[in-house]
């Protein structure tokens, strides 16, 4: 409207109505400091939400939604956008009724309240949590058209909690204790077996995420943190830890979270998340809208085995690669942010990224993975992703030769 007006009459000022006409927010007062005791994003960001894929599961109560990676930057996932995965819905636990029991092969089985937990020494660590099924829909080829859906079962959070080792030492571990069963208080009573070495190495019982209390979707009031290992093991709404001499082979480590190979055998206890990366923008949900010229490619990379040493980017479907620019803190078993800036000539792009971690592990192609694992292992698909960007800047999930 302003533009049309501005064209009328030679005496009118020349320029952009967004500058020439003062907007309401400059001339009239906004809301005061009592309006939003707990703040929320701008109404213009209403599209930045977790989304689910209804056809994936029988019921949203045992299902997953996805982090909108294409809208995020940096390495921290804000709490409201951390993807959700649960098997019996979100437990709404009353913190006053929360208890943690530790028993089994310990000197003294103990019960802790939340207040007890907060009397232990605390540590603060940033870790990614990736569902082992992340990218699981892509084994047979490009399927979901958006990085939120292909890669959005990951988040990266700064946790405050207690080293599990300290808590276990409070009970006194018996030498025969080689495994730990972690159990949730939710309607799935989620369980996973964890080797005692990992429990004593870097696991935590966390009660805060990004500074504030854990969110209900992430296990309020306390969850297990199992750095670098598949998200299902990070038991939420934690109620119990049993120390034993053998693994439990429970449903989530037999029926699920085992990786079926083409010969009919299956791998179990595939805990570590392999090095992986993906370009988050441009991507199908974040096309290039500015045409030719200066263009920013950005993405994330992570490894369950350490830090990210390098990320390479290809614009031509893997023919040629350039090291990307890593920016932001590099933490162990945390998401790393990478960028590649270039002048786009408007020709189609076949975008790929490839992570190399601190152990030297190089993110493989999807075909390389398929050559060993076939297409039915569901979990641990860390293959290189391709986005095709056409002349208009529209991006699509594809596979290329």
């Amino acid at each position, binding site marked *: 409207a302003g533009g049309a007006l501005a064209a009328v009459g030679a005496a009118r000022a020349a320029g952009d109505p967004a500058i020439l006409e003062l907007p309401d927010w400059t001339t009239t007062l906004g809301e005061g400091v009592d309006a939003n005791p707990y703040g929320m994003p701008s109404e213009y960001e209403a599209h930045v939400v977790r989304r689910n894929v209804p056809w994936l599961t029988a019921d949203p109560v045992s299902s997953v939604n996805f982090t909108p990676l294409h809208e995020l930057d940096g390495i921290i996932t804000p709490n409201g956008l951390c993807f959700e995965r649960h098997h019996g819905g979100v437990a709404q636990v009353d913190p006053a009724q929360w208890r943690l029991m530790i028993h089994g092969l310990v000197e003294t089985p103990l019960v802790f309240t939340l207040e007890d937990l907060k009397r232990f020494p605390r540590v603060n660590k940033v870790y990614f949590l990736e569902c082992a099924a992340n990218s699981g829909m892509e084994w047979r080829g490009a399927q979901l058209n958006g990085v939120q859906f292909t890669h959005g079962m990951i988040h990266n959070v700064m946790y405050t909690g207690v080293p599990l080792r300290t808590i276990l030492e409070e009970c006194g571990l018996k030498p025969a204790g080689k495994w730990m069963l972690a*159990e949730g208080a939710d309607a799935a009573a989620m*369980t996973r077996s964890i080797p005692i070495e990992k429990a004593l190495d870097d696991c935590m019982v966390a009660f805060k995420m990004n500074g504030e209390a854990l969110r209900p979707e992430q296990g309020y009031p306390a969850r297990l943190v199992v750095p670098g290992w598949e998200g299902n093991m990070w038991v939420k709404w934690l109620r119990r830890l049993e120390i034993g001499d053998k693994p439990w082979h429970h449903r989530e480590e037999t029926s699920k979270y085992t990786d079926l190979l083409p010969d009919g055998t299956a791998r179990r206890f595939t805990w570590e998340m392999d090095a992986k990366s993906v370009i988050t923008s441009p991507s199908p949900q974040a096309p290039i809208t500015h045409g030719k010229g200066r263009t920013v490619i950005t993405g994330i990379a992570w490894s369950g085995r350490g830090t990210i040493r390098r990320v390479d980017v290809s614009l031509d479907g893997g023919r040629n690669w350039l090291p990307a620019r890593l920016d932001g803190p590099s933490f162990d078993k945390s998401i790393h942010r990478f960028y590649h800036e270039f002048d786009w000539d408007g020709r189609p792009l076949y975008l790929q990224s490839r992570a190399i971690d601190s152990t030297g592990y190089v993110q493989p192609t999807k075909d390389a993975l398929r050559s060993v694992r076939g297409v039915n292992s569901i979990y641990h698909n860390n293959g290189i992703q391709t986005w095709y960007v056409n002349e208009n800047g529209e991006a699509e999930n594809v596979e290329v030769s």
Partner: protein
Amino acid sequence: GPLGLGRPATPDEIAAWDIDVRPDGVGLPEGRGGVAEGEELYSDNCAVCHGDFGEAVGRWPVLAGGQGTLTADRPIKTIGSYWPYLSTVYDYVHRAMPFGAAQSLSHDEVYAITAYLLYLNDLVDEDFVLSRENFLSVRLPNEPNFKDDDRLQTETFVFDEPCMKDCKPGEPTITMRAAVLDVTPEGDGEGSLE
């Protein structure tokens, strides 16, 4: 403990929460139940989702059948075709099923339903009765086919020096595209409830 935190758990408290069951039978409670009682319980509590024969209703999980499909194009992974240990059935049905009424079944009921799930998978006869005593005598057929993680031993190509220039011949050609499938939920800026 060294910090003096927490308090000893009472035996009754441990008993109340220590519900897990292991393949070697540790954790199994006293109890028993047969295929016949299991069928009744299953049809009342489970069939609505999992189907009368464990074949599943809609997209709920399939519990029976699928034997011999693990190398097929679309494997069907069930208790009979895929699960390595019967203890997992007992443990999981008790802790998480029926969906929406977790931990509501008695020990005898879980034994009975477990027996019936064996029956649906052609692993026992219709007069079979499962109990703590005979539990370890039942082995699931796919048990031998699980092996521990060997990714770093078998997929060693991930440690090769990566190629940086002219790594493939010719121009890239698209071999598959997600847009053709068209299964992606469409965002409308109104939240994820599409």
